């Protein structure tokens, strides 16, 4: 029997999860969203402070819910990156301290591998697969030919898609994070505003900074002319282009790499339009689709534990002088010795 305790603190959620032979026993998430919402974005220093405050409470709660003690744990896993550096430090100290005290393996986990493997809670990964990683910090197309085998075939050349949603929401007077409010308003609107489709350098690459600027300019022009910004239509027009770009690039990659499966991962995979478009796109094809449940689209430690199970089998363990890497690339997931 293998029991893993995993810690995630890469951004604005402090989370601790425990699994036993793949079964999730507890997954505690202390969210900071209401604090950062007021500032209109994540404030890294505040986030780091709240992690320090909450981390041990989350560990205790995760153990209590799993009805286990620390003596029962076989390995301690932690998000090593990518993420906000001050936040990553906090989770790392807690995991290393536990690994040191109990003389158990320390498992360093890549945050995005976590989002991808979260899909294992609802389905089996079938290789080769295309993973569409879309979040506030990342927009990547990743091809997996086997377990823990990642190749980034496309990525954003500027802003991440989630970041673009947040900024557009701010311009439209919608709250942070911007994904859900834009999605909701888009459902009520029509694609009536002409937003240019951004050019991107490679066949599977993305660019979102131009789209963001077009929306900001258009909204400002309308305001100067004293015209009303039709919020629902603007949200719809924006979402069509933003999600349209993901669909186009993802389906091209799926075809070119001849994948058996597409999996969605990251915060933006909660977007209902993206989910619907993906379902439509694979209909009548041989491609299998896994859409993560909503709880897997936000940051939590259950997904870190999921990756850690694979790494435990492979004995991918780190020494106690492990450091964080805020810019860790997923195809370097086993490269953590500095």
């Amino acid at each position, binding site marked *: 029997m293998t029991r893993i305790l995993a810690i995630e603190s890469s951004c604005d959620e402090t989370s601790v999860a425990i699994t036993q032979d793949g079964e999730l026993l507890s997954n505690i998430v202390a969210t900071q969203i*209401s*604090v950062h*919402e*007021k*500032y*209109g974005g994540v*404030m890294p*220093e*505040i986030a*780091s*402070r709240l992690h*320090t*405050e909450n*981390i*041990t*409470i989350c*560990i*205790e709660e995760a153990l209590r819910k799993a009805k286990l003690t*620390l003596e029962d744990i076989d390995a301690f896993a932690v998000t090593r990156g990518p993420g906000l550096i*001050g936040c990553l*430090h*906090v989770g*790392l*100290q*807690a995991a*290393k*301290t*536990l690994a*040191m*005290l*109990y003389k158990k393996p320390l498992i360093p986990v890549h945050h995005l591998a976590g989002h991808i493997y979260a899909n294992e809670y609802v389905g089996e990964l079938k290789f080769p697969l295309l993973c569409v990683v879309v979040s506030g910090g990342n927009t990547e197309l990743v091809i997996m030919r086997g377990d823990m085998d990642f190749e980034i075939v496309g990525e954003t050349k500027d802003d991440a898609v989630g970041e673009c949603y947040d900024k557009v*929401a*701010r311009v439209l*007077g*919608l*709250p*942070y994070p911007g994904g859900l*409010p834009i999605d909701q308003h888009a459902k009520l609107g029509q694609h009536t505003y002409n937003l240019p489709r951004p050019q991107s350098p490679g066949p599977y690459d993305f660019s979102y900074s131009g789209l963001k600027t077009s929306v900001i300019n258009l909204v400002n022009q*309308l*305001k*100067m*002319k*004293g*015209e*009303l*910004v039709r*919020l629902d239509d603007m949200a719809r027009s924006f979402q069509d282009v933003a999600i349209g770009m993901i669909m186009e690039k993802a389906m091209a990659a799926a075809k070119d790499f001849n994948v058996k499966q597409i999996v969605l991962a990251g915060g933006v995979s909660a977007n209902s339009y993206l989910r619907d478009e993906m379902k439509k796109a694979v209909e009548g094809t041989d491609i299998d689709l896994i859409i993560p449940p909503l709880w897997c689209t936000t940051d939590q430690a259950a997904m870190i534990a999921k990756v850690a199970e694979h790494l435990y089998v492979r004995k991918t363990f780190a*020494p*106690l*002088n*492990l*450091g*964080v890497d805020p810019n860790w690339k997923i195809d370097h997931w086993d490269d953590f010795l*500095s």
Partner: protein
Amino acid sequence: MIDLLLDSSNTDLAVGISKNGVLIDSVSYQAWQRQSELMVDEIDKILNKHEITRKDISSVSVTKGPGSYTGVRIAMTIAKTVALALDCPLYVSSSLEAMRFEEEPTIAIVNARSKRSYVGVYQGKKAIVADCIMDNASLLQYIDAHPDFVISGDVGYLEIEGKRVNVMANLANAIDEDHLVEEPLGARPIYLKDAYESETKIIVRKMNTADIPSVCEIEKACFKNPYTEEQITYELMNNPVGYFFVAIADAKVIGFIDFMVTFDSATISQIAVDEAYRKKGVGTLLIGEMVKVCKSQKDEVDFITLEVRKSNENAHRFYKRHAFEDIVTKKAYYDDGEDAIYMVRSIVND
């Protein structure tokens, strides 16, 4: 039984073990920004060296700051995790207190950057000057005025000399009732330069729909005829010439400004600040944001205008202070028959 001692509140990394207040062994060196990597490993080494297992540890004693923000979090997170895992007491000391000399009055100093220092002055266990932030000029004056006090810390940046104290020995001595944390799991460092928690750190940003309930509350508290939620929503989302900004402190909305820009002039519709946050410059920040918007318009905005109730003397004084001038009294301007003073401010030569 062994007490575990930890300090990473400055550029140092220090780990020690003690028994009954007496230091057994310690390691201490400049770790710069590598405390996150090295600290747990150093703890492991020192425990192994003395063949100490987790079951031998009876308490943990740690510095809580002030100092490097990341640094204080590293030792504190480790200490809290140890306290949780071993269900043992957690003792915390100010990092300045941990720098005091036992026999002599000590000025403990840590570089706080931006020409400031964290300072605490201790005589024995008593703080003569409680931990605070001082600008370096005042600190040097204080030092000059107290030539018989010992200076503790890495004070080369002040171009003076300081002595180094054994922080680990002090932490070993701080295992007592005064330093015990009642709820170790909720323990947090102290930052002093509490930019994000203090009331003075105020952020102004565009209002969004999530702010509507908070703005309504301030409306109700501040105005005789407050806007309804529908009116605010209209102003925010649908008024093409309208602008809405909110002031945020302590992670909540504490004030807002609502104004319109029409060609060459702008008009303040409403400005309000939560009573608990008045006289802290919130209104000034809000007006400042409005002026910024006016200046960034394609068509130049020359004037800001507003109406204020004749009876609202505080508001009238506030506007005068912000360069608004009385132009005319508008008779029976408000629904209840009260007069309004019409005020104008030029921003052309601002």
